[in-house]
């Protein structure tokens, strides 16, 4: 391993305080050493890395590395378009026939139907987008772990920089601090450790605060609302809201269809909240002689259980949305 043929000494070249991100020892071996009087430039910043990508012909970073698109995806989209066309045609025909050619009656129904359809399509599009996003998160997580484990610098940077940019909305100060502090030439695990310290830790704390707040609101709300159905709806609403807000903190969106596991938990929460109301009512009715204790205990237990379940949901969502799990260092130790 003969890799030290750079000769030492004073270099009389023009130099700047920017460093060469290429840390390959062998790459410098044939350069004459010594005093340098050329100008020189500063250390690899994010701007420099991005500039380098432009120079290499890459316009910009993708927002996330996209998963491979399979042929069935386009087939599915074509089927949807086909069904939409058929439904629109048939719907128009049915409305026209029902209103017996009365344009003043059929036109508003038609417009309403179209608006409804657009909204439905939009919802499905959002769901589709969210499902894709979840795939991207999974891929991002896999790529980050793999790049840290294999010390794959370029793969790591390709996945980290878009993530950093996305997180800037809620944590601008932290992201800017990280961008200024980080040396992208450091090994991936060191860069990610710094990213976790400066940015992710801040977001984790924000998420925790949100979880605590939403758990209390959810618990108190369920305790106050008198009807089981309304309890269920309230718990459903707060659960979905919590999921969405936490996912926004981590730079993406979670929808009911994109995360069935979390949604299952939300529905379970709503069911339990409704069931607890009903259970409390049965207990109160069963204790006709002494109503005070169960009628106080009922709302408290409703609030406690709903709050705890919302807290659990929040923690699950946080772990789900985090770019790397909290125990990523165990992965790091493997190499």
């Amino acid at each position: 391993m003969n890799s030290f043929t750079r000769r030492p000494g004073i270099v009389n070249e023009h130099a700047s305080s920017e460093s060469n991100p290429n840390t390959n020892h062998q790459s410098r071996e044939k350069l004459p050493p010594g005093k340098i009087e050329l100008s020189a430039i500063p250390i690899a910043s994010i701007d420099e890395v991005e500039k380098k990508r432009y120079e290499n012909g890459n316009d910009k970073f993708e927002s996330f590395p996209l998963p491979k698109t399979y042929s069935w995806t386009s087939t599915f989209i074509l089927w949807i378009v086909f069904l939409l066309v058929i439904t629109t045609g048939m719907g128009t025909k049915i409305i026209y026939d029902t209103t017996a050619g009365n344009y003043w009656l059929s036109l508003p129904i038609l417009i309403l139907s179209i608006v409804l359809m657009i909204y439905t399509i939009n919802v499905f599009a959002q769901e589709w987008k969210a499902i894709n996003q979840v795939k991207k998160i999974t891929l991002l997580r896999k790529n980050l772990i793999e790049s840290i484990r294999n010390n794959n610098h370029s793969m790591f940077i390709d996945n980290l920089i878009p993530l950093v940019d996305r997180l800037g909305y809620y944590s601008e100060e932290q992201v800017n601090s990280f961008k200024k502090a980080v040396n992208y030439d450091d090994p991936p695990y060191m860069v990610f450790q710094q990213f976790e310290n400066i940015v992710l830790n801040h977001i984790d704390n924000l998420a925790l605060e949100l979880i605590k707040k939403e758990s209390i609101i959810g618990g108190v709300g369920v305790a106050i609302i008198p009807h089981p159905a309304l309890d269920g709806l309230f718990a459903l609403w707060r659960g979905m809201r919590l999921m969405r807000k936490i996912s926004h903190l981590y730079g993406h969106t979670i929808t009911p269809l994109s995360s069935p596991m979390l949604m299952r938990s939300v529905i379970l929460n709503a069911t339990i909240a409704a069931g607890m109301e009903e259970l409390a009512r049965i207990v109160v009715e069963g204790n006709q002689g002494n109503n005070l204790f169960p009628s106080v205990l009922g709302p408290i237990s409703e609030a406690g259980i709903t709050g705890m379940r919302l807290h659990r949901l929040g923690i699950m969502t946080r772990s789900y949305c985090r770019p790397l799990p909290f125990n990523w260092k165990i992965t790091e130790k493997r190499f």
Partner: protein
Amino acid sequence: MLNQIYPLPMPLQILRPIDNLITNHLTLGISGFARAGKTIFITSLTQALLTADAWSKQRGQGPLAHFGPFERGELISARIRDDLHPQRPQFPFRAMRDAIATGSRWPEATTGVSHLIIDLEFRRDCWIGNGRKKLQLEIIDYPGEWLIDLPMLSMNYSEWSKECLNIAKLPERKLWVKPFWESLNNVENSHTDNEEKIIELSRFWREYLQHAAAAGYILNQPGRLLRPDHLRDSPILRLFPLPEEMQSTPLGQTINSRYQHYCQKVIRPFYEQTFSRMNRQVVLVDILRYLQLGEKPFNELQTGITQILASFRYGKGGALDWLKGIKTTHVLFALTKADHVVRGDRLNLEQLLRRMLAFVDEKNTLRATTLKHDVMALASIATTEDRKTISPPVREILYGLPAGYNELVQYDPGGIPLDMPPDWNEIQFQYLDFQPTKQLMQEPLYRGFPAINLGRALNFLIAED
């Protein structure tokens, strides 16, 4: 923490043990051979902790970059405790800091054991208390020359003499030890324990050790002859090895008894009271200087590390270790003066030390017995700026003030060898001794000294506490 700057009223002094109970104490030992950079490390680390607030809006930057609690905004404050253990010598932090910051010069080497206690306060998310956690960090400094004495504890006088004289007979040391041999030849027939002769012989032996140390050689025993501290001129330091045939003479018996005394009264107390009570240990190695000094000093460095590793007692912090009195659980091998190589070579520098450790720790004892260990290249005070040339051939270079120069220069020190042992005929690395300069230190009294990987080292050592 109770404010102990002002003495507490007598009834409240009962609270002190309670306060001590809830405060986490940690002893950080800074080990390393002479001129490895222990003093600079302690000075820079302390100054970085004290000035952390100046970087609170620029997390991830400054000397504490990569120190988790600092980057997460959990480090609230740090302060030096002058009031604790006033009877013990305190590390002269302020004098050292001022010497570097205002005089732009390296401070004098340490002469004895000294301590520095720093109280650190961290923000913690917990249900009880005021959301703050305290850590009392005690940093211990001692002369590097004393470290090499530790293997003497496991040797008798005869074994020690044999080993020392074998080293003294090496060609590179022969010239320096000549006066000692000549004086020893004169004493041969007298067979006496004349104290005057002992003083003369020990002076020659000390002078020989001084020459060897000045040339960068490590294996210089007894180390106290080079750094006597409070034992200066005491008879216990009139100590030197003797050939086997002279060990049974009255002179030999006298020196033998002093050797036993030296081991039991000087080395053992140092080992038990200072060395073995460290919870965390940083072993600083100045490998660059030894690369420059050449093959023989480099090999001695390796031998020296091998010998002192045998004296270390590490554990994983379990109950059994506690019963055995083993406290050291984290060991960091830090390669100093990382600012003297170009940025791209710093990882190579770490690799070089890793390879060296693989040689010196053949049985893998270190890995097997410690809870955590790591290797990193650091510069306690970065005296150079990393640059790269603009016009081709583009290469990384250093910008700093070398010793003996009047102005800052751009310099390429050459590449670091990757092989262990290095191929000495191929090494092109040229060590240039850079000095701290005001041009590259921005307000060190307010913002700390510029450093490389200092925060990362601190993160390894104390972050989990």
